[in-house]
Structure formats: C-alpha cells, structure tokens
C-alpha cells in the first residue's frame, strides 16, 4: 500500500512528537483483502495514552474498535490483515516488530481482557494452569511459586476460596467469576498496558459494577495505561479519562470524557447520546435514534462516512458527500472530524440536541 506512507508524514502536524506518550498510535490502518473487496476496518486512526490514564474507545459494531486493539496486541494472523501506520509502545514500534518480539511483550508489557471469557480461556486446562503458564513465560520461577502467585491473583480479583478455585476448570466458574479469572490472568505480570475489549458486555449489571470497580482499583495500584473498548457510554463515563468515538473505521471525535458528555461536537456522538435511554434524567417520551444503519466497510460512503445518516449533512454545501473531514482541533484538544462550521455546530447543539437529551 503506497498511500499510507504519504499520510504518515501529515499525521504529526496535529499530534505531539514521537515517543512522548507511553502508547502512541499513528495513522493506523488495518485493511482486510477479501473476495468482495478490501474491508477497511480501521482507516487511519491516531491516539496517545499515558500510563495511569484510561482511554475509552466507543463505537457501534463494525466501527473498528476491536480490530484496533487486536493490532496493538499483534493478534491478527499473519497474511490476513494489511497493517500500516505506527504503534509505539514505550518507543518500540509494534507494527515493524517481528511476531516473536511482540509475543514477548504480550503478558508483561501489554495484556488484554476479552469480551467472552468462555471462549478466551482454554476449556481443557484449569484456571490455575493458564495463569501459571502466562506468569512463567515472563518470570523464571518454579511451578509452586507461580501457583502461589496465581492464587494471590485470584484472591486479588475477588474469587472466593482461591486456593481451591485455582484447580477448577473454566466451565465450573460463573460468568462473572470467569471474567475475574481472565482479569487475574491478564494482570498476573503487572502489564503496563491493559486493553479491555467489552469487558462487561456479557455480564449482569451488579457483576458489571464489581468488574468496573476492580479494573479501576487495579489500575490505580499498578499505574497501568488502560484502553477500554465498549459500546456502552455509561461504562466509559465511569472509567475513561479520554474518549475516542469511532465510526466506520475512523475517529470522528476525541476529547476528554467531560467534553464528550457535556459538550459533544460531532453529530454521530449526539446521535449516540440521544439513542440511549437515561436512567439519571427525566424519562423522555421518545428516543431519538440515528436513522439508517452503519455502512458496510467495503463500500464506505464517499466524503464523510456518516453523511447518509447525518441530519446536518445538507448544511455543508455538498462537502459532506465529497470531502472526507479531517480530525481537527476545535480548541482545548477537542478533536472533531466534521464539516459543520463552529457556529452551526454550536447552534445545532444548543437548540436541537441539548434540550432533548
């Protein structure tokens, strides 16, 4: 792919210098060639994350959230995805590293919590064995010591009777306990970067609350950088310092959590906020859905990918249908990819959107 190289040079203009941040993703593109055409799952996203901070990535299914995290972890099978751009983890570029180099980083430097712990854990091995295995890859210790560590970790994430449970198989755990066990596994080597991909989507709300508290406590303790990927705006509001809203493989808005919830700027973010019923506000008679459906990633709409579903696309004199808006700073580090002029956006937010939320 030749075009990404040109764009990499553009990217630093709106971004900080290389190596400033602990995790620095620059113009990441992940394309999957298929028989029907190229699926542009991630099409040029950039973000940075410091240790001790949490980034929330929000978007609907197919917006590229999970593909982004899998590329950071180096989990795309070789030859399947075309990955371009750069991912610096503490200065090391993961895209150009060999698989073996990335493998050594996994577990110690970065770890991941998957959405579905039943399929992410091996059904044939006990929970303890799986934690021990990960721990012994990075620490030269005996099995006994590693097992003791596994028991400590299970205790740390709140599994009752950890010394007995360590010898149980994943199917003997309930959903919430499995998720805890996976968190224990992910944290067994104190990773610097923790990626949680929909960590609570499969869980009940009381268990979800326990898991969110757990992630927050553990982050404080280990000072990890955390990326939390979810479609639930409530969950990111709980955890995230910064939020990136994704649509059709690109970031459409990026800012602090406060800004995203109090002063959202992109029509898609407005749509997301209007779509969800709020338990903390007066009940509205009707929800305000986003019309239409998310686009196919093989055939992303020209111009702004959101334009067919956007209520404000007509205000831009046709620019929405032809030019792809860049992610630009509108002040205070609030990045928005939208053609609307600041005045129009302000007006739409104040008059149309805010009163109805």
């Amino acid at each position, binding site marked *: 792919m030749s075009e990404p190289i040109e764009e990499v040079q553009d990217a630093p203009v709106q971004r900080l210098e290389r190596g400033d941040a602990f995790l620095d993703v620059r113009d990441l593109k992940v394309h999957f060639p298929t028989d029907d055409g190229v699926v542009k799952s991630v099409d040029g996203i950039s973000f940075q994350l410091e240790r001790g901070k949490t980034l929330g990535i929000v978007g609907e299914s197919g917006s590229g959230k999970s593909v982004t995290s899998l590329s950071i972890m180096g989990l795309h099978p070789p030859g399947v995805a075309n990955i371009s751009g750069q991912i610096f983890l503490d200065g090391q570029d993961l895209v150009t590293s060999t698989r073996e180099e990335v493998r050594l980083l996994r577990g110690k430097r970065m770890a991941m919590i998957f959405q579905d712990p039943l399929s992410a854990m091996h059904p044939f091995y006990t929970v303890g064995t799986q934690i021990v295995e990960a721990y012994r890859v990075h620490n030269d210790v005996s099995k006994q010591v590693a097992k003791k560590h596994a028991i400590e970790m299970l205790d740390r994430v709140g599994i009752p009777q950890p010394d007995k449970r360590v010898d149980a198989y994943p199917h003997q755990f309930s*959903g919430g306990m499995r998720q805890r066990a996976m968190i224990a596994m992910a944290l067994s080597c104190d990773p610097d970067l923790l990626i949680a991909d929909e960590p609570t989507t499969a869980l009940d709300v009381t268990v979800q609350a326990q898991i969110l508290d757990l992630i927050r406590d553990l982050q404080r303790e280990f000072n990890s950088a955390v990326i939390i990927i979810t479609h639930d705006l409530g969950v990111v509001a709980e955890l995230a310092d910064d939020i990136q809203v994704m649509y059709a493989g690109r970031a459409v808005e990026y800012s602090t959590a406060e800004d995203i919830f109090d002063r959202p700027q992109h029509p898609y973010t407005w749509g997301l906020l209007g779509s969800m019923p709020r338990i903390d506000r007066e009940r509205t008679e009707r929800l305000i*859905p986003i019309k239409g459906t998310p686009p196919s990633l093989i055939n992303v709409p020209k111009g702004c990918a959101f334009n067919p579903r956007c209520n404000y696309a007509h205000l831009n004199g046709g620019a929405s249908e032809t030019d792809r808006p860049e992610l630009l700073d509108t002040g205070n580090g609030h990045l928005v990819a939208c053609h609307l002029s600041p005045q129009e956006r302000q007006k739409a937010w104040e008059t149309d959107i805010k009163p109805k939320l």
Partner: protein
Amino acid sequence: MTTTDAEETPVVPKIGEELLSVDGLVKHFPIRKGLLQRQVGAVQAVDGLTFNVTRGETLSLVGESGCGKTTTGRLLTRLLEPTAGKIVFEGRDISHLSEGRMRPLRRDVQMIFQDPYGSLNPRHTVGKIVGAPFRLQNVKTEHGVKRAVQELLELVGLSPEHYNRYPHEFSGGQRQRIGIARTLALRPKLIVADEPVSALDVSIQAQVVNLLEDLQEEFDLTYVMIAHDLSVVRHVSDRVAVMYLGKIVELADRVSLYEKPMHPYTVALLSAVPVPDTKRKAKQERIRLQGDVPSPINPPPACRFHTRCWKAQEICKTTEPPLIELKPGHQTACHFPENVDAPAAKAEPAS
C-alpha cells in the same frame, strides 16, 4: 392488514381490563441421574409467581441471568408447561392445554426473540418467514399472503421489495424488524418480547424501541418485556417486576419503582447501572453486592436474597417474606424494605 380484524372485533378491547393473570406459577426442571434416570433434584427456575397483565400495558420482567425471566416468558407463551400454578389468558386457563388446543391461541399470544440471527430460518425468504403464520393458522388474507406480508414489512420500516431476500442479507436491526413483522402477522393481543433489543447496537436499539412503542399504540398491543437493561426498561414499561432466583421480589409501576425502590435488591440493581455522566462518577455511591447469584438448584432458604443482602438479619434466614402491597400498586417481598414512609411501614419484628 384487514385479515384478522373480523375475529378480534367481537371483544372490544378495553384498556385496563385484565388480559393475563398468573397465579403461583412454578417451573422446576428435573435433574436426573443414573441408569434409572431417577430425579435427584430440580432447577427451580420459576418458583411461585403471581401477577396480572392488563390490556394495553407494558409489563417488564427484569433481573440478572438465571433469575427465571426467560423461563417465565416461555411459560406465558406455553412453550413450556408449568409444574404448578395457573396461567389464565382472557378468562381461560391455559396452563395445561395440549399442543392442539393451544394452537388457535397462538395467534393471540406471540413472541419476539432475543437473537435475530438464530430466530430466522436462513433458508427461507423473508416472504416465507413473515407469511408462515398465515399458512400455519390457515388465515385467509383479502389480497393474498404476499400483499399482506408486504404491508407488514412496510409497517415495521422495511421495504416491500425485501420480500424475496434471505435473512443473511440484512443487518441485525433489520432482522429484528423481520421478526417483529412475523410476530405482528396475526395481530396478536399479547406479545412476549424476550430481550428484543439487547443484541442490537445503541443507535439501532433506539429505532426498534420506538417501533415497538408505535406498534403498541397503533394496535393496542400488550407487551410482556423481558430485559436486563434497566434504562431501556424504564423507557418502555408501565410496570416493572424485579425477579431474583425465580421469585418476584418487587412489582410496581415505573415511577414508583425507579424513584422509590423498596426491595434492597432493586436498590442495588439501580445503583449499579453505569450512568453516562462524568460528574456523577465522583459522588455516586454504589451498593456493591458481593458474589454471584446462588444456584437455583439449591436456593437459599427463606428470603433468597439474604446471602447477598446488607440488611439481612436472622428472620430473613428463617421466614420467607411474602410479596405484599406496601403502597398502592407497589408490592415488595422484604422484611426490611427501603423507602417506606413511617406510617405505612409494617411493624418490623425485632431480632
């Protein structure tokens, strides 16, 4: 859609009239072991539910997974036969009707399923799927089945041209609409919707929620909604029943349940809902429930919530609290309810 009107009109539906009543509903799934398949225990999925559904309302059943809400839905539609208790639909006891006797009633009681991928036959066209109820129930349509199906498709926001397509050509939200069109084909009176939106994206979820509300208004539908998302439940329901381990612990109208929940479990559930507001993060005090829901094979005695309840005392372990009306229209099964006005509070037994 003028097909089934003739049969429905004799009974003029009145809002507020009882459509369905459930009394002491129990469903135990036997656990069998050994050569003789002797019963060694039972999963007490649903253990004594009593509630009514009035015409035109939306009653939601909420609770964590394993609390028996889906089993209840399947009992109401008689996809399962209850172990004990009575289900009365329009004055008729349907608890133990045979398959054949139940069939004519199926047009009045329909179901929307959670998974829009698993609930549509991939080898059938949309036309065949949505038209199936007409064929199965032998309903004559005025302008033919195709026309009726196309009208249904338009009704749920799909285009009539989708008639000859297959389910895989549609997105999750569109599939859910196909399922809803099928459900509506025979103009049911009661729709049991089992997590109708939980598999959908947020923006699509809102479309389907709005669609369900519009259809309710247009056809005087009565919904029993099974859901776990408390924000969605608050938006759609008139009354809400909170279930825990096969029992209803609280049943109240929406406003009273969300503003003044009485059962500690409801209080904990509501406090656990993540709120999309960063300012609430700091001050929000959350009740952290410990542990998981106990197994319904061997549920705790007396009050089933006592193992996780922070207000539990001796009496909770020995005496089961009955589901009683503490306030008009607000039933709670708890010895030490929250949010009770002083005079209305029953004498709390000392322990």
